[in-house]
């Protein structure tokens, strides 16, 4: 097939349409410039005005999010959000999607996703300190899904493990709707002294822009506009050349060089090169300070001869950063680059007047207002309409189904479901220890990362339940924020702020736009209730094929703060003979539950009700309990209900339990598998039971003693009991067994 720069047959559509711009958008460019754009200019607009870069379909809704709070140092709109975590330390964090490239080339798609988010954090001057990878795939009974899952995990490891940033968390979920469209999100956080934070808006006329790192090649031409701004259809594999290729070794050198430049005071500012490459970095840097720039493409190191200006401007070659440097500092900055074996080419200079001029071989290839690219992209309030199929789906309540024939079999099905089961298969392929600050690594409610030189730590969790989003996008988003906050609270941290990645279908379809709008509304309400502002995020649209979209999946990355990491509470039962308490109220809520999907084979009903005030009280109770040293273990109760939460606490601690389900009001299977919100399973330290009960009562959190830890069996009195060893096999072997299925000789 023809590429974007190939010969255009006489019957071909006009260039702007080939590049993904609508006729109206083309007219807007003509009117802005007062003339028809030249091809390189058109290419620049096409990437900057793409959905991925301009957020044209989403920004009207994103404006409604709460973004302010005393802890927020930098909110949305910059390369990454920044939160004050105390003791003069700032935490920089951001989440992004690399789903489209990963669907086409899983290893490189996922690998370059890691590279990109790390550069976002680096651009604020922070040392990248931890990664989390929320992933969604189709069912593992399908060979292609196994290939995608295996490739993505290997790519995350292959890149992350080589750059010295630990991968400390994330989740893996499976649903058939992700078959053609896996969701590959990645979150990075980093630390920097608050007074050493780099400003995204920096520089003055005469400041020099150094392009540091990799040479620019033809890889990833139009990666964002080609891939992430349209749906994946059957010929998607033809887009493979649009997927960038990662070089993690170069990224590691880039990290060290940039941090050394910053430490030496040689940087005015730093921009990462990601989507839309040089065009985006230079135009945003200039627009941010209301200046223009003279960009000289002859200074850009190229990987191959014969590259068009067009290619150089929009190439998404990885491992590049743009440093904004005072002219007198250029030689010193270039010496640092050389020390790390990197080029640091002076490619552009800031100029007065706001015009971005692109020169090559003595000619002017483009001359456009920088702000027209960066800030003046189109904005759409697209039609939104609640889909009419939703009523019937919500009306069918799985709690009305008869009890399972064997409750023990149902327990095994839920515990062994890939959505609940252990994800060791994936996270053992990631280095979770490098940098030496990982207090709690993958597989826990939240990862806990220390801040070197202090007693402080951050707790981070990523969450998003696609089924809930599908059944009620507003509730799905509320649940995602609530669960993420509950997870960081369950280790004892106070939820502070969120980043997010909003994964949706085609926004040009009204039902998708309605799902998106509802999800944003839910996220906003939950974040307001918890006092956790939105510091940034990413929108990934067009996750659909053949008119069939993924579940509307807002993935929330929650940052919590622990004043003293030694106060953290772990999820596993640590000893025999401890009282076990269920916190929160359990109601007959099976809508969208794991039980309904794996036992009843249904995704229907309404997601559990979330009372945001009740939820917030639980978070405060958990943080207060950690400060009061009264808990020996604490574990969030969500997917798979109390049954799964108890089993996970037993497996994590290697200690069984004896639990007496309450009789009366609620059927046993509902009590075991309901996914009511705002609950946790905790075990107070021996002798602290009364103190804990009083604390729970003071916080207004329902608190029921349900049993005792100990022994080597998971005992649900009068229902069933299984050995801990068997439960471990069910839990740990589910994913490895599915993944090895493809390797069995036939």
């Amino acid at each position, binding site marked *: 097939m023809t590429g974007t720069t190939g010969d255009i047959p006489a019957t071909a559509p006009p260039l702007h349409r080939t590049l993904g711009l609508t006729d109206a958008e083309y007219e807007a460019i003509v009117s802005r410039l007062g003339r028809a754009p030249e091809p390189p200019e058109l290419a620049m607009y096409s990437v900057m005005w793409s959905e991925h870069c301009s957020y044209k379909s989403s920004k009207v809704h994103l404006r409604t999010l709460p973004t302010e709070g005393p802890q927020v140092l930098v909110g949305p709109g910059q390369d990454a959000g920044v939160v004050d975590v105390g003791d003069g330390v700032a935490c920089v964090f951001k989440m992004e999607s690399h789903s489209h490239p990963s669907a086409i080339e899983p290893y490189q798609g996922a690998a370059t996703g890691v590279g990109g988010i790390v550069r976002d954090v680096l651009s604020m001057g922070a040392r990248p300190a931890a990664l989390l990878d929320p992933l969604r795939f189709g069912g593992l009974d399908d060979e292609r899904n196994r290939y995608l899952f295996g490739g993505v995990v290997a790519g995350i490891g292959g890149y992350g*493990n080589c750059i010295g940033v630990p991968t400390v968390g994330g989740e893996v979920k499976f649903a058939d709707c992700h078959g053609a469209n896996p969701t590959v999100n990645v979150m990075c956080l980093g630390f920097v002294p608050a007074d050493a934070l780099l400003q995204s808006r920096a520089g003055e006329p005469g400041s020099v822009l150094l392009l540091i790192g990799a040479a620019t090649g033809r890889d990833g031409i139009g990666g964002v506009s080609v891939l992430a701004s349209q749906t994946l259809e059957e010929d998607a594999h033809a887009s493979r050349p649009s997927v960038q290729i990662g070089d993690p070794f170069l990224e590691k050198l880039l990290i060290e060089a940039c941090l050394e430049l910053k430490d030496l005071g040689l940087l005015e500012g730093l921009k990462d090169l990601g989507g839309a490459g040089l065009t985006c970095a230079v135009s945003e840097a200039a627009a941010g300070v209301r200046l223009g720039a003279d960009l000289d493409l002859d200074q850009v190191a190229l990987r191959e001869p014969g590259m068009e200006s067009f290619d150089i401007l929009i190439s998404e070659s990885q491992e590049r950063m743009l440093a904004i440097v005072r002219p007198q500092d250029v030689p010193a900055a270039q010496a640092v680059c050389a020390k790390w074996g990197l080029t640091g080419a002076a490619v552009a200079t800031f100029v007065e007047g706001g015009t971005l001029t692109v020169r090559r071989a003595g000619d002017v290839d483009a001359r456009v207002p920088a702000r027209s690219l960066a800030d003046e992209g189109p904005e759409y309030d697209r039609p939104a309409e609640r889909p009419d199929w939703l009523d019937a789906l919500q009306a069918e309540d799985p709690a009305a189904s008869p009890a399972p024939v064997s409750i023990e079999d149902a327990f095994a099905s839920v515990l062994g479901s890939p959505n609940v089961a252990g994800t060791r298969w994936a996270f053992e392929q990631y*280095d979770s*220890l490098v940098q030496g600050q990982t207090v709690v690594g993958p597989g826990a409610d939240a990862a806990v990362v220390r801040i070197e030189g202090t007693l402080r730590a951050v707790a981070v969790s990523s969450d998003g339940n696609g089924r809930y989003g599908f059944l009620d996008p507003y509730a799905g988003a509320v649940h995602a924020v609530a669960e993420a906050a509950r997870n960081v609270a369950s280790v004892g941290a106070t939820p502070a702020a969120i980043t997010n990645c909003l994964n949706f279908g085609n926004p040009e379809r009204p039902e998708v736009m309605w799902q998106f709008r509802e999800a944003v509304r839910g996220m906003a309400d939950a974040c307001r209730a918890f006092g956790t502002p939105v510091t940034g995020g990413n929108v990934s649209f067009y996750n659909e094929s053949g008119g069939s979209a993924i579940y509307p999946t807002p993935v929330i990355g929650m940052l919590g703060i622990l004043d003293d990491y030694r106060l953290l509470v772990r999820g596993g039962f640590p000893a025999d003979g401890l009282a076990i308490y269920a916190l929160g109220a359990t109601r007959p809520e099976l809508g969208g539950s794991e039980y309904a999907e794996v036992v009843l084979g249904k995704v229907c009903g309404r997601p559990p009700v979330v009372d945001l005030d009740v939820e917030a009280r639980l978070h405060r109770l958990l943080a207060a309990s950690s400060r009061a040293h009264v808990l020996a273990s604490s574990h969030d109760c969500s997917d798979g209900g109390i049954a799964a939460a108890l089993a996970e606490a037993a497996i994590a601690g290697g200690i069984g339990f004896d639990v007496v389900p309450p009789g009366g009001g609620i059927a046993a299977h509902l009590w075991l598998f309901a996914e009511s919100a705002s609950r946790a399973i905790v075990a107070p330290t021996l002798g602290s039971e009364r103190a804990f009960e009083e604390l729970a009562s003071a916080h207004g959190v329902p608190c029921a003693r349900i049993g005792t830890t100990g022994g080597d069996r998971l005992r649900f009195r009068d229902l069933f009991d299984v050995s801990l060893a068997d439960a471990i096999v069910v839990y740990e072997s589910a994913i490895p067994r599915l993944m090895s299925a493809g390797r069995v000789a036939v």
Partner: protein
Amino acid sequence: MSEHRPRVGVVTFPGSLDDRDALRAVALMGGDPVPVWHADRSLGEADAVILPGGFSYGDYLRTGAIARFAPAMESVAAFATAGGPVLGICNGFQILCEAGLLPGALVRNRGLAFVCRWITVRVEHGSPGSAESSDNLTIGREGELLSVPIKHGEGRFVASAEELRRLEAAGQVAFRYCSPVGLVSDDFNPNGSAANIAGVWNEKGNVLGLMPHPEHAVDPDLGPTGGQPILQWLLSAARARVPA
């Protein structure tokens, strides 16, 4: 009189990742950590040297294959030949094998995947068979168990049958992968290493290479501390060379 704080040089190659962790661990164990840059021939008057973990030069060719040619490695080789204590961790172990300072080689894990996991190793020879060892110059008694993490994609130790026989006979096998209670079996071999070998000594007993990461197992707030005796050996060996 306070005990001498030996200077421990930690070499940073381009692509080293656990170099800062090794420096931190040395300080925590009472040594004086000294960063050493790959392009310098000076080891900073170090009394001992650590080659840390990572992916030196990206390890795109073969692990450690480029790093062995770094200027600092000439000095490390001379230091080792003169009897100086050298500890190679993970990528450092791979580099020492490539440089011919340790026997054998490290190839792709049997499972073909990177593996990061806390494991147990059994001390085979806390000091090499031929070396005289005082108590503080040994990592531990034979059969002692250390809980340490591994994290590597190419940690499968291989050597010819003859070389393996020689290593076993000379007491150069430092550690073997084992079960949490010390059973050495293939079920507890995380990467397919020959004879479950996790670490080896050179003949003289002053160079030790291992795939597990002792520098990530010294801080009790983060987990088990099986790395302490290994770093303690390095510091003791450094002290033994330089009178306080």
